[in-house]
């Protein structure tokens, strides 16, 4: 069953995804892509008569982050007058989720507070084992060297470990809770679930508090030690330490000023918040050890309705690490490009997608005709962009480190573009086979980047050869794909020119720079592209317009996407900055119009975020709610890029060229 999160939290080893009512949907340890140990994990109240599961429709919830942190507050209100405040945080140094539940009731009540979990430790329901150490009051479930444990303060007074899916249903912890008392079975094996419980005695308007520690470890003894040590620390201390960790990490960011936006209905503050949230979110998608990123926390691991998102794509990550670099976090580029060197295939290309450790992931792009050449182009392009902003010794060292990889990748692109346009492969949307504008633009950028790096490395012969091919690709793309209607065709599919308008053709300008606003003809082409995409792909929702991927898109109902909308605004902002003389010059009218339109796109993207500010992949075209992958790293990186560009525009308009 597919369930999308409303919020995520974690540290370097642990990633937790949660629903809007504080139910845990995913608990990834020790990597963001593997293993996901939870099927269900949530609180439940027994009123003395019946169970109230906290993810039921009877509860209303308000969920948000504590400002500038990955600490989550969830407030639940039940029609019966019961209220639960949940504070969730992950300790910055150890993989332990700490959940503080404060239960209140308007009326006196005598019941139970239960915490139920169905763990699939090691991402499997098979061959799991669980035990409840009643002396240590620790309930643990394990598979091989993965241990997940539950400890609580006050200590739980009853427990059950039983079969989750078996004909001996009465051992099932979920059923066992129904009579308001647990059977206290101490161990079991197989596909199992568990519950722990406490008496819940509440006076009218009284409150009870329960703190639950859900920890992960690679061994039984480590789990015991972690839980024991953490239980000795005051919660306030852990909270402060965690809050400080996030605030300190955010303090390294490039500081925004946004002068002149003060009067825009709180827009400036909203953008500051979105900037911080995108940064905090990207931290949680990154693997600290390998430098790779998951596109989004996995929510469809069985690939029931899509191909899954819990893997690393070079295309997405190249944009993510550059956005982080521009935002003040260069270390992500360093680590990712090291990962790229290790993950590169023998033929010099990069695969469709990878596990975070660099192993190739499940794929439908295993052949030359089904690979996605744009991923190789994007990676080379990103390496060059990063190189250009490095300084001094770092610049030299980076080039030395990546040179062989650049050479192999560039030669791969040369091999696949002998006739100018690239050979048939899969498009960036992973749907069509053919020859595409976006892919050609990315190859152009990759070869231009490689050419620059070759020049810097003293290989001018290679530099010339690669640049010549890049220019050939550019000319062929314009000659074959530019339409008199004023936009690029999507490409050639089934050997026919497909004139469908596709938002990805903006890639010819941003991020790949195949078209330059400095050239008058190309400047007009960029403006036509912007105008046509806006005109033909807009979908009105949330008091604005989002941009769908392409005409007749049927994936997940053809919703508008955040990245396509933010590509459009990014192109608008970048174009404004590329125009000479800003708002005072001959293009003053264009500057104002494009800036205003770009801001509208930004506002639209913000309106499609979750209640916690996380940007999804899509926005539901009927309800305006966040849709599909949540949060999507690529959406976050484009938000960062957009905000930084807008900041530059604001500063330029204010006469500050800092």
């Amino acid at each position, binding site marked *: 069953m597919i369930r999308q999160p409303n919020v995520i939290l974690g540290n370097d080893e642990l990633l937790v995804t949660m629903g809007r009512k504080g139910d845990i949907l995913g608990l990834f340890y020790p990597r963001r892509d593997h293993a996901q140990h939870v099927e269900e994990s949530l609180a439940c109240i027994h009123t003395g008569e019946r169970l109230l599961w906290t993810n039921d429709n009877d509860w209303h919830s308000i969920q948000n982050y504590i400002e500038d942190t990955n600490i989550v507050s969830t407030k639940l209100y039940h029609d019966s007058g019961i209220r639960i405040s949940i504070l969730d945080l992950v300790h910055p140094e150890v993989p332990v989720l700490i959940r503080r539940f404060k239960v209140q009731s308007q009326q006196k009540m005598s019941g139970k507070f239960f915490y139920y979990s169905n763990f699939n430790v090691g991402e499997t*329901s*098979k061959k799991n084992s669980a035990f409840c150490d009643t002396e240590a009051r620790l309930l643990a479930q394990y598979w091989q060297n993965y241990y997940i444990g539950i400890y609580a303060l006050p200590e739980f007074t009853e427990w059950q470990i039983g*079969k989750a*899916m*078996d*004909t*001996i*249903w*009465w*051992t*099932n912890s979920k*059923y066992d809770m129904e009579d308001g008392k647990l*059977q206290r*079975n101490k*161990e*079991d094996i197989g*596909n199992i679930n568990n519950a722990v419980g406490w008496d819940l005695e509440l006076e009218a308007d009284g409150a009870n508090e329960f703190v639950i520690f859900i920890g992960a470890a690679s061994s039984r003894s480590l789990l015991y030690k972690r839980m024991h040590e953490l239980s000795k620390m005051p919660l306030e201390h852990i909270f402060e330490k965690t809050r400080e960790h996030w605030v300190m990490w955010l303090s390294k960011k490039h500081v925004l000023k946004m002068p002149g936006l003060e009067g825009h209905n709180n827009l400036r503050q909203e953008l500051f918040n979105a900037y911080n949230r995108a940064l905090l979110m990207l931290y949680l998608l990154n693997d600290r050890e390998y430098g790779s990123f998951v596109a989004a926390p996995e929510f469809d691991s069985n690939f029931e309705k899509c191909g899954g998102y819990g893997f690393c794509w070079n295309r997405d990550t190249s944009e993510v690490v550059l956005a982080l670099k521009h935002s003040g976090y260069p270390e992500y580029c360093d680590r990712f490009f090291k990962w790229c060197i290790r993950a590169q295939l023998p033929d010099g290309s990069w695969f469709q997608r990878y596990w975070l450790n660099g192993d190739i992931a499940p794929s439908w792009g295993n052949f030359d005709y089904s690979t996605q050449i744009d991923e190789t182009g994007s990676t080379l392009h990103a390496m060059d962009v990063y190189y250009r902003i490095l300084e001094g010794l770092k610049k030299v060292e980076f080039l030395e480190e990546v040179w062989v990889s650049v050479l192999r990748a560039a030669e791969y692109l040369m091999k696949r573009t002998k006739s100018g346009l690239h050979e048939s492969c899969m498009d960036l949307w992973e749907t069509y086979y053919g020859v595409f504008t976006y892919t050609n633009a990315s190859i152009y950028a990759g070869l231009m980047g490689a050419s620059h790096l070759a020049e810097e490395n003293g290989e001018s012969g290679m530099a010339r050869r690669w640049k010549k091919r890049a220019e050939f690709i550019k000319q062929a793309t314009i000659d074959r794909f530019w339409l008199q209607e004023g936009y690029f065709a999507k490409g050639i599919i089934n050997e026919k020119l497909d004139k469908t308008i596709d938002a990805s053709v903006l890639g010819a300008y941003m991020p790949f720079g195949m078209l330059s606003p400095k050239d008058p003809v190309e400047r007009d082409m960029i403006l036509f592209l912007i105008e046509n995409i806006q005109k033909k792909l807009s979908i009105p929702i949330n008091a604005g317009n989002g941009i769908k991927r392409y005409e007749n898109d049927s994936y997940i109902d053809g919703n508008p996407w955040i990245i396509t909308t933010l590509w459009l605004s990014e192109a608008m902002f970048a174009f404004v900055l590329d125009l000479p003389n800003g708002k005072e010059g001959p293009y003053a009218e264009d500057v104002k119009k494009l800036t205003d339109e770009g801001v509208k796109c930004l506002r639209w993207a913000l309106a499609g975020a979750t209640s916690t500010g996380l940007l999804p992949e899509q926005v539901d075209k009927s309800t305006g709610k966040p849709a599909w992958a949540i949060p999507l790293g690529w959406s976050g990186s484009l938000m960062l890029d957009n905000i930084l560009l807008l900041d530059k525009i604001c500063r330029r308009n204010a006469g500050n060229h800092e």
Partner: protein
Amino acid sequence: MVRDLCMFAGFNEDSQIVWFKVTYSKEPGSLSIITDFFEKENAFIMFGHIDNITQTTGEYSIFTELKKDVDMANLAQKIGELEVVNAVEFGISEFGMIYSVDFPLNVIGVRGVMARALTIVDIIKTLNQSVPHAEGLLTLSGLRGGSHAAKYFKSIMPINNSNFASMLAELYRAVGWGILEIDCNPETYEGKIIVKDSFIADVYGASDQPVCAFMSGYFAGYLTEYFGKNISVREVSCKATGKNFCEHVISLAPSSASQEYQLRGDTR
């Protein structure tokens, strides 16, 4: 099939739901003769269904609510004596399991649907073939349904040791799931349920293993809710494995782990 839709009144201790299946000669006015007769006998027809069996013969199924003191055999005999009537069958529902044939169908208090047995068995088969722990999953699915049924009965009529089994049997017949013979001791919580013509076993096809885990779960849910004790029900004999009927053994669920394994026949 229509006969199984006969019980459509809420529970009323003074009356009973009676169905008549009248086979008649298709002559002009013959249906009017039958309906006039019912009217004269104060038997209000709540629902009727006509099947044109042949060119000359029809089958008229009538559902009516009658006082308990009415002599049904006598009434049926009188219907049979009508000139246009060839044959009469009748049956009585004591508890009224289905009480509406309007859309949507309502079965014991909640929306019901009708489906070909094969449609449901296809789901069960797919689960058995593709899903780990399918037997457990089906048991748990049935458990919910049985529990809801018992809760509903408790809410609308007195349920006690003398009628809990017959209510379940009537429900099974009404929804077409099978014909039950229930032998359960309410003191020891032990016994067995024979299911004749189980809709699952009937259409499942040959199987090496019993296939009615959903029904075991349903029985367990019903009995657990009624007795207020965890009841284990397991199918020990199934028509799909070549037996004449399905048999489910009832016992009190064990409270310790070792007993559970013994119950499952494992050696430990």
